[in-house]
């Protein structure tokens, strides 16, 4: 496999074709327009996604305020439905996926493989610019009653409530889906074809392996969702009856098409985070990662098995018993490669010289949260238990442990870890520790009681509940306020550090992957001269002589 060459004038320069006058850094205003440098696009993705995180978080706070009392006294139930629909949609499609894949993937993959840019820089920029209109469609839908059928938008509910808002919701998802497919094509071609010749597959950073698996998954699952949504759009607006049983249609078809994407979507949200974990843990434990190959291959295994488990979301949809059996088994099998990763990280930590930087705190916090979320996932994978707790708060607890305790913790860890590389400045560790503590306590206060609420039968997606659940709900609401407050030290830290923070060296954490071999922040085109890889990305604690012998 040879490395593909990116001609200098294509790679990053907007108008200036004279190599001698290459700008060495972007100015702030370059980040607000169309730009084809993968680093600019990565930061555009991250900042946009973070804004949507704040908006989605505000919606969550609104819901938790409603749920502070059993009565619908803060927002009316239809607005509550719109809030829960858009909270889920925004957090998944406009925060975690774009931040993890679009943001860190774009920023880091070319740097980690020694390329000057992605394979298709223009496609990359277009993919990013599909996101803001998608967000505007979702927010605009509130003026038309707001999509109210939940983030899954099952028919018939989605076909009878707020048709205009629901159509806007569909178009928003199709836009982000298109963006995601474009990104996947770009990542696959980039990682396979554009590595520096010396970067062999067995030296590829695990984050790149994770992004490769993620992209393969997005590539095959996203278009199936698009097919389902197009059918739904036609049902709502053009009088067809794909999902109308009285006219020969079938609601279950929607669920199959939807979950064929949306189950893999949980791996789209966690595989890049697994990649981030595999980068961060060895750096701060100062040890080679345990089981490099096992981690790389388990990403591919999760990607493959993950495609065959979607029906576990439909155990209560009249699924025949043989199907429940098949999908219970395949679901439980996904836990194996996931466990391989968890044990590899723990083994990497074992006996390491651990530095508890904020990034490491979040990484270790993630381990705790994600293991709990993963274990409740195993309980849900078993059809009999799933049928018992279906559509209760147990489900809400499970996926928030995985998506908040997993994905969001991972994104925070990544932000603290790569902030010096992206901005050239260090973040404040003390504020970071405050942020971590508030997030960790807040998340557990918010989501732990939900397990109990669920097993006791409190249904999800409702604005009112039985008064017996009041105390635990108020605990959740208190936790949600704490989570909201935890953003204050983080935002202060990020803004202050970005503008005033102490200057960072090229490699402040003494890490070994390629992105740390260039300047902080990297110059346009990443390197003056491309690096040559002579050792693996995780060979910490080995002497230079040992590396030379190898």
């Amino acid at each position, binding site marked *: 496999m040879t490395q593909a060459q990116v001609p200098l004038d294509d790679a990053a320069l907007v108008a200036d074709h004279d190599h001698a006058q290459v700008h060495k850094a972007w100015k702030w205003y370059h980040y607000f327009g169309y730009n084809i440098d993968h680093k600019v696009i990565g930061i555009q993705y991250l900042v946009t996604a973070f804004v949507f995180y704040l908006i989605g978080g505000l919606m969550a706070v609104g819901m938790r305020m409603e749920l502070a009392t059993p009565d619908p006294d803060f927002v009316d139930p239809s607005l509550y439905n719109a809030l829960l629909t858009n909270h889920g949609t925004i957090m998944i499609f406009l925060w975690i996926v774009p931040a993890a894949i679009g943001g860190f993937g774009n920023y880091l993959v070319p740097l980690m493989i020694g390329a000057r840019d992605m394979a298709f820089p223009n496609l990359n920029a277009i993919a990013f610019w599909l996101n803001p209109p998608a967000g505007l469609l979702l927010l605009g839908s509130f003026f038309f009653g707001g999509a109210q059928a939940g983030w899954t938008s099952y028919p018939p509910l989605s076909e009878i409530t707020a048709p205009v808002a629901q159509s806007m919701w569909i178009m928003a998802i199709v836009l982000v889906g298109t963006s995601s497919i474009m990104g996947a094509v770009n990542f696959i071609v980039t990682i396979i074809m*554009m590595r520096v010749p010396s970067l062999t597959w067995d030296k590829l950073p695990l984050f790149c392996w994770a992004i490769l698996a993620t992209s393969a998954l997005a590539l095959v699952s996203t278009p199936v969702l698009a097919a389902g949504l197009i059918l739904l759009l036609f049902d709502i607006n053009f009088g*067809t009856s794909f999902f109308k049983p009285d006219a020969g*249609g*079938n609601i279950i078809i929607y669920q199959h*098409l939807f979950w064929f994407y949306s189950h893999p979507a949980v791996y789209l949200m966690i595989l890049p985070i697994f990649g981030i974990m595999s980068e961060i843990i060895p750096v701060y434990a100062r040890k080679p990662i345990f089981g490099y190959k096992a981690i790389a291959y388990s990403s591919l295994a999760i990607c493959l098995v993950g495609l065959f488990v979607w029906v576990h979301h439909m155990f209560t949809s009249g699924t025949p018993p043989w199907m429940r059996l098949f999908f219970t088994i395949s679901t439980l099998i996904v836990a194996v490669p996931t466990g391989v990763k968890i044990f590899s990280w723990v083994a990497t930590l074992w006996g390491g010289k651990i530095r508890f930087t904020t990034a490491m705190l979040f990484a270790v916090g993630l381990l705790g949260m994600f293991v709990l979320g993963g274990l409740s996932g195993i309980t849900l994978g078993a059809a009999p238990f799933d049928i018992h707790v279906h559509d209760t708060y147990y489900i809400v607890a499970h996926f928030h442990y995985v998506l908040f305790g997993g994905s969001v913790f991972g994104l925070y860890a990544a932000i603290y870890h790569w902030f010096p590389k992206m901005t050239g400045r260090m973040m404040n560790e003390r504020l970071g520790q405050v942020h971590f503590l508030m997030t960790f306590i807040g998340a557990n206060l918010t989501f732990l009681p939900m397990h109990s609420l669920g097993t006791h039968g409190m249904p999800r997606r409702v604005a009112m509940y039985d008064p017996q659940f009041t105390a635990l709900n108020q605990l959740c609401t208190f936790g949600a306020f704490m989570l909201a407050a935890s953003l204050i030290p983080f935002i202060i830290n990020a803004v202050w550090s970005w503008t005033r923070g102490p200057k960072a060296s090229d490699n402040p954490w003494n890490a070994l992957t*390629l992105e740390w071999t260039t300047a902080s922040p990297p110059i346009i*085109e990443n390197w003056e001269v*491309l690096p040559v890889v002579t050792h693996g990305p995780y060979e910490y604690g080995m002497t230079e002589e040992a590396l030379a012998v190898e």
Partner: protein
Amino acid sequence: MTDATAPTGAAIAPEITAEAQAHDHAHPDLRVWGLLTFLISESLMFGGFFAAYLMVRGAASHWPPEGTEVELLLPTINTIILVSSSFVIHLGDVAIKKNDVNGLRKWYIVTALMGAVFLAGQAYEYATLGYGLKTNIFANCFYLMTGFHGLHVFIGLVLILGVLWRSRRAGHYSDHKHTGVEMAEIYWHFVDIIWIILFALLYILTQFS
């Protein structure tokens, strides 16, 4: 370049210069790989439609429902035209690999005409079938799936016309510079393959079951 405090500071040594990299052209054009990857994705979107169709069909007692029988003659002629156009477009690709721009133009014009005839045939079929999108679940599937395919044929046609437009400039395509030509061809083949599946599902299996 490397930070002095890095534990293995000397391990990463710069050797390949940007200049050398920019002037080495011995690599495959990535755009073809990008297109092929994208087409995997496209196939799965059609795959979603096919799966939905098969589920609807499997649950129906009568297929096709009363009043929405498919007609075979025109679609068969259309299919023959579209499938043959895949061979024609390949002749254009062969021509440009022999540096024969006129040959390329000739075969691509023929392909474009065949594609246009296919679309016109589809429009005629829609106009004369006697039922519309909303008639029943079969009509829903029929119009949505053939319509989406028609849209893809149209996009393929635009790509071919784009190649023809660019080929007017001398030297734009040659025996060693024809990625755009190849991409239009690959996309056209893809549209063809999808049509063969569609034709089998919607027409043949509906007529003879």
